[in-house]
């Protein structure tokens, strides 16, 4: 039944390559062609190899950047940006000799400007590169600096690819030990563009414990496997809520789901961060908890991650 459905999808103009569950490269430029029932397997393989070799961009390191860490999830709203921001700050706090940069690759919903309390248009360097905005010692770049706060970025994939390329390569990062990239939700253009363009040291997948989120987190992990990016581990966010009044614990989003997924995928759980009003309040105020409340229990948990 399912294969019949896929045939119809193909005849609508998608590439026959889609049928063979390839390495998830998904193409921007496959032209539509009709499938004849007598297509030869060998011919198909050869065609596929040709298209693949033509279609893949070359991976090139970003000048001056030693290691690239991406924070992703398949699911939205699990705390990727919150975790990425706090981990970037923690990396800098842990070793003041290390230079850390933060790239907000969520072009549709950039959260980093708000969380890092940064506003304004980036200046241009003499080489016409954008200078990242800095706060708390972290160099940041985001689509949020390039568009008005209320303006939506209503772009199709090709524009997004081009924007990501610019955010990666046309920013004057200087010498960075770590570039932390906050990804948008999903497993599409942005994720592919980043993974295909720059060598990524590792990916951290953030999820809440509930099954619905884990479904997508699993897809996120699968995506990184397809594009050959090592997954460093999972972070379980919003794991449990402790009532500030009576200290009763409620697992609002389920219990320990991420641990189960980590076991299935053979990955480590890098950290377990509870639901705490302070984390949200400090991010909304542009003073992430690692900076504003460095002594708090939350921060020790983040630093362990």
């Amino acid at each position, binding site marked *: 039944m399912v294969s019949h459905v896929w045939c119809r999808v193909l005849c609508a103009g998608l590439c026959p390559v889609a049928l063979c569950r390839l390495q998830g490269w*998904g193409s921007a430029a496959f032209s539509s062609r009709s499938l004849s029932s007598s297509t030869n397997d060998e011919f198909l393989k050869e065609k596929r190899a040709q298209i693949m070799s033509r279609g893949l961009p070359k991976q090139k390191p970003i000048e001056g950047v030693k290691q690239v860490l991406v924070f992703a999830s398949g699911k939205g709203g699990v705390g990727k940006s919150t975790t990425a921001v706090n981990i970037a700050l923690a990396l800098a706090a842990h070793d003041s000799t290390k230079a850390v940069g933060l790239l907000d690759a969520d072009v549709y919903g950039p*959260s980093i400007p708000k969380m890092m309390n940064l506003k304004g248009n980036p200046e241009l360097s003499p080489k016409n590169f954008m200078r990242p905005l800095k706060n708390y010692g972290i160099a940041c770049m985001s689509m949020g600096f390039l568009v008005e706060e209320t303006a*939506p970025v209503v772009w199709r*994939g090709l524009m997004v690819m081009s924007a990501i390329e610019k955010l990666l390569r046309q920013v004057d990062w200087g010498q960075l030990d770590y570039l932390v990239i906050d990804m948008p939700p999903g497993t599409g253009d942005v994720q592919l563009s980043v993974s295909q363009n720059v060598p990524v040291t590792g990916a951290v997948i953030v999820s809440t414990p509930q099954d619905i989120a884990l479904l997508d987190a699993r897809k996120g992990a699968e995506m990184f496997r397809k594009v050959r990016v090592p997954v460093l581990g999972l972070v379980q966010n919003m794991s449990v809520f402790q009532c500030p009044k009576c200290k009763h614990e409620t697992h609002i989003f389920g219990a320990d789901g991420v641990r189960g997924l980590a076991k299935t995928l053979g990955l480590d759980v890098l950290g377990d961060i509870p639901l705490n009003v302070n984390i949200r309040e400090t991010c909304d105020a542009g003073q992430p908890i690692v900076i504003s409340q460095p002594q708090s229990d939350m921060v020790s948990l983040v630093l362990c991650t």
Partner: protein
Amino acid sequence: MEAVGERGNLAGVGHILLVLSGKGGVGKSTISTELALALRHVGKKVGILDVDLCGPSIPQMLKVQGKGVHQCDSGWVPVFVDQDKSISLMSIGFLLEKPDDAVVWRGPKKNALIKQFISDVTWGDLDFLIVDTPPGTSDEHISTVESLHPYKPLGAVLVTTPQAVSVGDVRRELTFCKKTGLQVIGIVENMSGFVCPHCLECTNLFSKGGGEELARHAGVPFLGCVPLDPQLTQSLEEGRDFIQEFPKSSAFPALAHIAQQILDRTSPQGS
């Protein structure tokens, strides 16, 4: 509803409703599902179109994951959630060989599938078609709005959580609706407060009032606040009918109220 030219497979659909947000994880799929269940409970026939190709959640929420899609002469038959055929669903989740398969596609491929979802699914007669979208304002949204435009959708329900980072993204989504001529039916503020089951103290985990403030500022109706409710979360995990099974739960009154406002909007005397 008058026919607009050739409506094809959408000819029998009464009202089309999109559920949008700029932000991820605010509860679009949850609201879409609960709205469908609430409308069913008042006797309406509802279809759900899940255009979140990267993270299709609705099959799991309605306990129909793993079902196959059948074909008929006019196209794909949507999956029915129950014996009465009162809720039907189409999602990429049904087209994957394994539920864990990642859909790692660029824009043009997503556009092609969405167009097919809109034109080639035989919905039959429906009172409502609810379209659940992924976060953002990307290919999926542009294609969905463009393809649905000839069918004059009723409008969009925007979902947000109260905190500043969500409200900021939803503000952008409001602008998107304005630019594409999509009417905003209203804003829902989800995850608005958590009441401890032990001591009944309410904690505004994700802040409070941001969605209501945004609705006031933008001049669009505010449909209501839905509190954080572990019973709702659990019900969705298990694919249960929250509206039927948990009428005393904290989220129920808010969800019922939202559904009622939609019904009022579509009644002959409504605006």
